[in-house]
């Protein structure tokens, strides 16, 4: 399995492969994502291909958020499908992650943060 990544400006956009992010594949996905997280910087997870995320997948996402923040980076997640949003709302994780509707909104929100940091 390979990750599709795009680099726009300083941000890396990672399209998480679908349709599931669960106990069955979370270890595999983590191995692919870890090197990107280790670089720090700003990362956007595009979730549009994911139709299901379970507690293991959620734990993996939280781990990425925590490590990226530790390295001084930032994480946005965008394009959540309805079932994935249901999970986030069920365990109130929509309050923990910065969730954007799409990539453009995620990039704009990171720009604003950068501007604020420069100012």
């Amino acid at each position, binding site marked *: 399995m390979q990750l599709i990544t795009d680099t726009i400006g300083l941000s890396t956009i990672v399209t998480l492969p679908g349709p599931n992010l*669960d106990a069955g594949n979370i270890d595999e996905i983590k191995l692919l994502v870890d090197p990107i997280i280790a670089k720090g910087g700003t990362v956007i997870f595009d979730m549009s291909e994911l139709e299901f995320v379970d*507690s293991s997948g959620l734990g993996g996402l939280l781990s990425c958020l925590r490590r990226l923040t530790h390295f001084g980076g930032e994480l946005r997640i965008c394009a959540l499908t*309805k079932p994935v949003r*249901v*999970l986030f709302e069920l*365990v109130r994780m929509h309050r923990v992650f910065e969730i954007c509707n799409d990539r453009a909104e995620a990039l704009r929100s990171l720009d604003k943060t950068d501007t604020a940091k420069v100012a």
Partner: protein
Amino acid sequence: MIDSAAIRILLVDDEECVLRSLRRLLWQEDYEVLTTTDPDEALQILAEQDVAIVVSDQRMPGVSGVDLLTQVAEASPETLRIILTGSPELETALDAVNRGAVYRYLLKPWSDADLRGVLREAAETYQLRRKHQELQVLTLTQVDQLRSLNTNLEEKLEALRRAESQLAVSREKEIRLGRQIQESLLLGQGIDEIDEVAFGIVSEGAQCIAGDFYEIFARTDRGFDLVLGDVMGKGVGAALLGAATKIQLLSSYNDLLTASGQIPSPADVVTHASCRLGEKLAKLDSFVTLCYARFDLVAGSVSVVTCGHPPIVVRHESGEHCLLQGDNMPLGVMTGEAFVETHAQITPGDVMCFYSDGLTDARRDHEMFGERRLIDAVQMHGGAGAGALAGLLREQVIAHGGERLADDLTCVVVEYLGPASGHIDLELESDPKKLGRLRGAAVELCADADIVERTHVELAVTEAATNIMRHAYAGRRDHLLRLRGWRRCQVLTLELQHRGVPFDGTRPRPARSPESEGGFGLEILDGAVDHVEYTTDRQIHTVRLTKHLNSKGDRKCN
């Protein structure tokens, strides 16, 4: 004002003529006059009688007037003492005054008017002193009496407090006893074990125990009987009568069954029980309202005998409602009455609310919760399932009437789910990569629900299966996991079975902190389904998930 009648005057002089002269002087006064020429006799008189005033000559053979009066002062301190002397000597006068022995010092010859005046004044003084003394004695006596009364009062208050305390303990005992009777004898046991029916129970005891009771019994292949009743009155007596009524109904059912070999009709059971209980209830000046219902799940019908009891609120799956009510009298009001049944058809998805009047009579000030509010709640929330409706009714009634209920609040919601349909049964390896297949199978059973509920089902089955793989099989992927599932109307049941190490996900667990990356599984399970149950039977461990699908689309239950 002098009450001279009470005044006794003793005149002491060694000269008889002086005594006579004084007698004459006082003859017209209302004094009792005693005379003596002998000072010893004077002291003797004093010892025997109350004397107000002693008038003594100063010069007498053997003893002086001052000496005599000094002895008088010792013997009778309240007696006023007057010296009458023919030889005024300063020394004698000073001696008399210094020894405190005399009230007045008078000279012979005396002026009649002066002497009368002095005696009157002395009599007044004496009387005032006596009055003062009497008042003092009276005051002391009354103080003593008050003190005694106060002590008595305190003792009585203490006794009252003790009695009240004992009474409170007795009341507490009675309430506890009543509660025990209610829990062990009056309230239904194992009420949630009928496949095609879901129950929701509200059973809130009043401050003082009342006699509400309910029971599910007479289970057959076709269905079951439900009885819910309310005994007039409160306290342990009402609770015992409730227990007696319930036992009589069970006994009547069995007697009739044994006698005829046929399952007796609800009307026959109630009529039989009424014959047995009616007169006893009347003698006890009590009566019982009840509702006896027979659910025939094969025929899809319910037969009801209501005896002076509130109607049953029925909500059909379509959302329409109706009331089931008979016009039989309560048990104990009339003897020999034949009870009549009411019949209704039920279809899967129908919800029936049986209750005692403690529910509708719950008051805020003078306003009762009422039947209208109950019907509205059943109509509006009946689709949410029996348990949810019962919980909501309890909340609404307590919000209306407060926590301190005046009467028992008893309600049994019966939701007819109908026969199970859409069974799934598959066995998979304990490999997380198989989770997708489990989800796919589970979601087939709720394809008519909305995406939120479908996702909840997928999440729940995934988390339950993952827990089994992790905890029961310790991550080994070569074991087996079985998923069984079915639908009864809106209620979806999923069972995940394994033969690994049993674990209990219901045990208390530490709160997950916002920083933690794990521990979501059980939280997701709790939020995604209505009920999670862990059981073991013959080495097979089962995690059972139950969810009421509120968003179920147009698909009819039947």
